[in-house]
């Protein structure tokens, strides 16, 4: 009857591609990115060392949205629901930036000595590193990196191809064939969690080869989920201003996405407290320097800012039901979280190199913007290239049936 009619979900309208509007959003993000490129160029000539460290921060930041998109896309295929139908194209477009991330990995791959202590000649005299040399050596590092990209690329290629088939040949998909998304996403998520865990150990944790934390990979996974939810809400709050998103991204959907972002905020805090509590209690000489460095000196303030702006403030704001349902309010919380994701990565990576002076460096943010200047255009182009709503998914109508107001 009247309350359950789906007349406003007319397929022809939903399958529209608002290329002009998306193009305008894309050019807006280019302005910020352009400024970042200029600053990054300046930084490259000022300090080659800091540039490389900041480059790693920027790279890991954008990679976390690429891989977080893949993870959340697969969770959506497994669970269904309106929030996933509305966010799906954003995540699919996010995953399609992987080829760029492969190319952007090359500067890291060719500068191992500049970043990783175990790759430097001095490491030969370090007895601790010598015990880990079977794992921490350049050839094996490259083999693992290739393996990660092949696994991620395979999942991304197949999921996007099937999704395209759903749009182009919907008649063939009704029936057992639409189960293939689920059948792939279950094992796919396991593969993603394993590869991201190893990736975090290889690319981030091994910066200091003496330090180890078994929760490190999970912490990175939680951070990827948090960054991706914040990014999704930010993009959606821009897309909701015009059709077809205006028809499906109702306050109910923002409410659900806001709740998920809230859950990731708490998950991030939970993982961090777990790591702190275990390392602090054990007080072992291999582990405790990680926190001695970060809870004293210039990094102490960065730690405080992180606690306040990536946990306390978002936690208190996201408790509110009305705020989560209001796109123009919740996007500010999402913006703060995204900025704090950068600060968190600098907090993780920076203290390995910077022991005195200021903790945060302007180059960290410049390189996030500069890599964004490459990542975002690719993202917007992929987003404009497909219908913005997966209206031909066999579960679409069922999922949207309860989206009221």
């Amino acid at each position, binding site marked *: *009857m*009247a*309350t359950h009619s789906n007349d406003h979900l007319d397929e022809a309208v939903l399958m529209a591609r608002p290329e002009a509007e998306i193009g305008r959003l894309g050019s807006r993000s280019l302005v910020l990115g352009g400024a970042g490129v200029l600053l990054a160029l300046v930084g490259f000539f000022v300090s080659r060392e800091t540039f490389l460290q900041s480059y790693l921060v920027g790279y890991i930041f954008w990679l976390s949205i690429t891989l977080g998109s893949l993870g959340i896309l697969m969770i959506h295929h497994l669970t269904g629901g309106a929030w996933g139908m509305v966010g799906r194209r954003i995540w699919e477009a996010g995953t399609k930036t992987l080829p760029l991330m492969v190319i952007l990995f090359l500067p890291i791959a060719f500068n191992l000595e500049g970043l990783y202590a175990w790759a430097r000649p001095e490491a030969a005299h370090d007895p601790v590193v010598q015990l880990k040399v079977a794992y921490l050596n350049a050839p094996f590092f490259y083999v693992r990196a290739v393996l990660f990209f092949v696994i991620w690329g395979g999942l991304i290629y197949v999921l996007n191809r099937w999704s395209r088939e759903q749009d182009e040949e919907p008649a063939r998909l009704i029936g057992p064939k639409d189960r293939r998304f689920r059948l792939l996403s279950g094992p796919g998520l396991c593969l993603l969690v394993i590869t991201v865990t190893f990736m975090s150990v290889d690319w981030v944790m091994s910066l200091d080869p003496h330090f180890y934390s078994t929760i490190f990979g999970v912490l990175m996974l939680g951070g990827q989920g948090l960054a991706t939810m914040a990014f999704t809400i930010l993009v959606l709050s821009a897309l909701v201003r015009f059709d077809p998103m205006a028809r499906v991204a109702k306050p109910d959907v923002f409410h659900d996405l806001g709740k998920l972002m809230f859950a990731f905020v708490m998950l991030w805090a939970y993982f961090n*407290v777990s790591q702190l*509590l275990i390392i602090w*209690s054990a*007080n072992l000489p291999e582990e405790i320097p990680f926190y001695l460095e970060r809870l004293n000196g210039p990094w102490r303030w960065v730690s405080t800012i992180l606690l306040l702006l990536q946990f306390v403030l978002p936690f208190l704001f996201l408790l509110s*039901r009305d705020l989560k349902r209001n796109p123009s309010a919740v996007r500010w919380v999402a913006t703060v979280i995204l900025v704090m994701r950068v600060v968190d990565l600098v907090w993780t990576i920076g203290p390995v190199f910077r022991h005195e002076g200021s903790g945060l460096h302007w180059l960290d943010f410049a390189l996030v913007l500069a890599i964004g200047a490459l990542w975002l255009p690719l993202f917007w182009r992929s987003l404009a290239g497909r219908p913005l709503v997966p209206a031909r998914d066999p579960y679409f109508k069922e999922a949207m049936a309860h989206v*009221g107001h």
Partner: protein
Amino acid sequence: MSHHAAATGPAIHGLMAEFDSAQALLDAATAAQKAGYTRVDAYSPFPIHGLAEAIGFRERLIPKFVFVAGATGGTLAFSFQYWVSAIDYPLNIGGRPYFSWVSFIPVSFELTILFAAFTAVISMLALNGLPQPYHPVFNNPAFARASQDRFFFVIEATDPRFDLDETRAFLNGLNPREVVAVED
């Protein structure tokens, strides 16, 4: 007088309409809200999406209680641990400072959850008026099926717009299986 029947017979709790489907119940609640009825209630064997809004149910108190209780629990736990380990009975444990806030986190977290959860359940029961040994809706024998396969909608006699004949006619217009006046 339309209240004639009510004045001579037993007092009336309200008019109860019985429906076959969740959708019919939802539509009835929406129609009643449009017609201006405010003191209504709906009964179904399972939760129905959107029904709470349709009967005008707006509960905003419990979240506030829970927040205050959670904040109290956390603060209490943290300051109690501080008082015990730094003021009342300082013990040197492995050379760590007396005010070791890291080790206070788990207990503070647990007490936040404990206070919040108990407050949520207790204030829900208090505001619901539960447990309630007697409720007039059970005076209708057919109501037993509210926990199986029937859906009931009640417009209570205390509703300012309630009028036995008019309200009965309104409910009959919604295609119910039956409309029954429930004794109080």
